[in-house]
């Protein structure tokens, strides 16, 4: 085996040789069956590495992790003027775009859910872990929303009028979507899409509130 070239085979595979080196190596490969075979094996190694599966731990680590989360501590929400670091770049047009996207998403998912109601086909869900029973989910999210809205009341005075108007308009759109989802769920509480839609919409509201509060804190 030609060590001079064998040691360059990985760089060749990764495209890290310059054109002169690459041409010289390719010329060598045309005459050296051993290097050619090694190159093929190395390529298989690279291919196999990319296909290695992820495997979960054999024991559930969550109980120990949960026990180590600081009890009762919430990661920081921007509540006062001491937090002046801007964590999100969030413009008025972006808020409006988010609103439009939310309306489209809301309409699409509710329409799809309602379209599927007459059939007996079970509705596939994206991931079991993303769907929590609505009663549980809304309790925790309602608490987060109430917390963030209280902060927003204090923060609104730091925002200009146009921004406040657009934020309120967005929140109204989200609230309408939440209300519609709740009504639909009353008629079809087991509908996976509606449950997920409600959860996603409520979380959108949390995200919007957080971002607005961050924006207000950054402007203070």
């Amino acid at each position, binding site marked *: 085996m030609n060590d001079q070239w064998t040691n360059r085979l990985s*760089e060749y595979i990764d495209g890290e040789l310059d054109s002169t080196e690459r041409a010289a190596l390719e010329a060598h490969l045309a005459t050296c069956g051993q290097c050619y075979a090694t190159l093929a094996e190395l390529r298989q190694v690279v291919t*196999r590495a990319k296909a290695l*599966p992820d495997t979960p731990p054999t024991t559930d*680590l969550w109980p120990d992790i949960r026990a180590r*989360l600081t009890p009762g501590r919430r990661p920081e929400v921007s509540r006062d003027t001491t937090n002046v670091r801007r964590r*999100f770049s969030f413009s008025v047009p972006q808020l409006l775009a988010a609103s439009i996207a939310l309306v489209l998403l809301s309409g699409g998912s509710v329409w799809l859910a309602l379209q599927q109601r007459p059939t007996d086909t079970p509705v596939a869900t994206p991931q079991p872990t993303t769907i929590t029973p609505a009663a549980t989910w809304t309790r925790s999210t309602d608490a987060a929303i109430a917390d963030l809205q209280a902060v927003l009341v204090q923060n609104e005075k730091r925002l200009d009028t146009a921004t406040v108007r657009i934020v309120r308009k967005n929140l109204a759109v989200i609230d309408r979507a939440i209300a519609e989802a709740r009504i639909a769920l009353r008629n079809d509480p087991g509908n996976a899409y509606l449950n997920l839609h409600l959860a996603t919409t409520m979380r959108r509201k*949390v995200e919007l509130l957080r971002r607005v509060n961050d924006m207000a804190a950054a402007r203070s």
Partner: protein
Amino acid sequence: MSRQVLEDTLTADSIAADSALAASGDATAFERLYRTHVARVHTLVRRMLDADEADDVTQDVFIRAWQKLSTFRGESAFGTWLHRLAVNVVLARRKRVGIERGRFINEEDPLDGVTSKRVTPELSMDFEEALASLPEGARQVFVLHDVEGYRHEEIARMLGVVPGTSKSQLHHARMALRRHLEQ
């Protein structure tokens, strides 16, 4: 919007929203993030360190994520942010346990550390075992480059070596692992 696209959108939105909710202190949302990402994090940790450290370090990664969630800007996917954080925790661990830079560089022949047992049809498992038996430096470079997709320049910065060392370790690791592809 097709059903699959809608499902993908909802899943991505759900993860993004969970990260925001967890950042506001919702441990239930954080548990959902844990369930979604634990396999990827645990696998990364297990491959980068010794298997018996994987559970503890994986826990450290998620604790760290909980503490740092307020710094997550949402500019990248949560999974990408968490993955990078996991790499940093692993590298900090590596540093803490005193794996000196000299030892990393002076590993003469990573092939010596790899068993040459006969490969069975259980190629994936054999490959994982062969990977685990590589010397630490070669194993970490291989995992970061070939499995996780980092570039040599990034790896060199993370490990405190020069890119040439990263390239050399990668080649040695590949040469060792190719034995475990033989039929």
